[in-house]
């Protein structure tokens, strides 16, 4: 039995559709429309905003300063996604091929951080990376070890260890975003790998391909939809990340979301903030359009 035409049962259709449709219209589409309208507005006085149809905000968004911030956000998000993919792929493989006994626990191990509060995870990382944190102490121990080794072979020992600033710079932002987004990448990868027909891998191995070659030529192409899904699920939130660059970044690691926030909370330039928000949304749409184009290509054959 297929889907029912809505006209055959108008009463039930109204009961299931009206609440959702009204909600989406009132509390999603209208707020979005307001942002869109404001992006064509200008400030007149302190609290007054006139929607004058001006394109000045969009012109301002193409200034070099904002273009570099957009470019930088893309670069950071892409780098984070790449690192997550490289780190996450073997983990997803390991979960897929783990024994029945271990698999649920490994999955749980990846999912638990995913359920844990983002702010708490960011804060935990900040504690660890601070100048007095364990990461610095660990590096200090290594440094002293190296110094001792050099002295042992008769070389000049290294100067005393100065704690490095691991926080409040671009490194911290990338590190923090990888930390936060890794589970986003592993779960879709696992879902894709789990559906894989294992006999194909066995066939490849039997026919003489090595493990690495089998992974690159058989597993990766077959798991491509899952890889693309994982990339999108990681890339999109990383691009719009606010908390990590705000708390862990320095003055030069601002991403788009931080600039948007500043327009509303500090600069009080709502129209320009609205413009930047919509440019970010357009960027997401382009990414998703690219993905769905990719998906359609194999079906055409």
């Amino acid at each position, binding site marked *: 039995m297929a889907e029912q*035409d809505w006209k055959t049962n108008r009463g039930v259709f109204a009961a299931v559709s009206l609440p959702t449709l009204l909600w989406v219209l009132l509390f999603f589409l209208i*707020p979005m429309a307001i942002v869109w309208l404001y992006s064509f507005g200008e400030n007149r006085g302190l609290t007054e905003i006139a929607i004058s149809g001006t394109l000045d905000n969009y012109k301002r968004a193409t200034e070099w300063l904002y273009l570099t911030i957009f470019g930088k956000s893309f670069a950071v998000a892409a780098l984070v996604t790449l690192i997550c993919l490289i780190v*996450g792929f073997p983990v997803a493989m390991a979960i897929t*091929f783990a024994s029945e006994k*271990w698999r649920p626990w490994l999955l*749980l191990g990846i999912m638990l951080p*995913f359920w844990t*509060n983002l702010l708490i995870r960011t804060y935990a990382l900040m504690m660890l990376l601070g100048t007095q944190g364990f990461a610095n102490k660990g590096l200090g121990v290594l440094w002293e070890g190296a110094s001792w080794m050099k002295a042992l072979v008769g070389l000049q020992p290294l100067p005393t260890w100065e704690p490095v600033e691991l926080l409040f710079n671009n490194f911290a932002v990338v590190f923090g975003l990888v930390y936060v987004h890794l589970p986003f990448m592993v779960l879709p990868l696992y879902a894709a790998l789990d559906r894989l027909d294992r006999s194909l891998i066995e066939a490849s191995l039997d026919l003489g391909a090595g493990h690495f070659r089998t992974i690159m030529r058989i597993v990766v192409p077959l798991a491509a939809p899952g890889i693309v899904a994982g990339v999108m699920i990681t890339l999109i939130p990383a691009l719009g990340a606010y908390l990590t660059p705000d708390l862990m970044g320095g003055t030069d690691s601002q991403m788009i979301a931080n600039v*948007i926030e500043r327009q509303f909370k500090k600069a009080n330039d709502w129209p320009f903030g609205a413009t930047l928000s919509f440019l970010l*949304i357009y960027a997401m749409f382009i990414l998703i359009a690219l993905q769905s184009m990719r998906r359609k290509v194999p079906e055409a054959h």
Partner: protein
Amino acid sequence: MALFARTPRAPLEYSRTLWMRLWVGAVMVFLYAPLVVLMIFSFNDSKRNVVWRGFTTKYYEKALGNDQLVEALVNSLTIAALATLASLVLGTLAAVMLWRFRFPWKGAIDGTISLPIIVPEICLGVAFLMFFAAIGWPNDLVWPFNLGAITIAHITFCFPFVTMVVRSRLASFNREQEEAAKDLGASEWQVFRDVLIPHMKPALVAGALLSFTLSLDDFVITYFTSGPDTITFPVKVYSMVRFSVTPEVNAASTLLIILTVVLTFVALKAQGVKAIAETH
């Protein structure tokens, strides 16, 4: 020594190779070490977080005695409960609509319902800030009505997840069961209550859990919709982290982590790990 395999390894047992194990182990350390350190240092008898100075629970007393923090936590839990309830209803209705009916503009409506998942949090936060300012939403209501704006915002981004989960569960429903129930004289409501809901139950549990954690977790959207009297737990922790890092934050965080772990295990009991993993 489970690390070194004794029985010969079959070709596909990738997870038994040594480098795979080391890799997974390193990733787990990476994911958990910061959280474990945070939890351990919540018991540290020192104002600064750096050196271990002995065991104490005084920061828990301090955190639980901090009225603002407790109020923020109560606000967060209230919002999460309300948003979960509303998201369950709306999300399930939307899923049933999309699964059962054929109607004009279906593709567009389907896409619009899942849009809040894709739109960046910051844009959604900005949209709610402008929306509530534009319609002049009153911000001097008494508790719990002053949480209305935040709850509305949370429902908007939570219910599409419920729709997604419930819909994938409905795909495995045999429509003949519905027909049979109707043939035997059940009304639409009875079919929904006695046939569809029992089938959807695992998805409803997963969806509820997902909504609850998403709502409890949200900082950015709440940051834009909350007023001075409607502080939620993440917003409060954020301002504490910004101003000073104290073991009090660790204590409060530890409590929330424990709550998360307990919730996850409740869900596991209800569902099994695999079913929950598939919802993501």
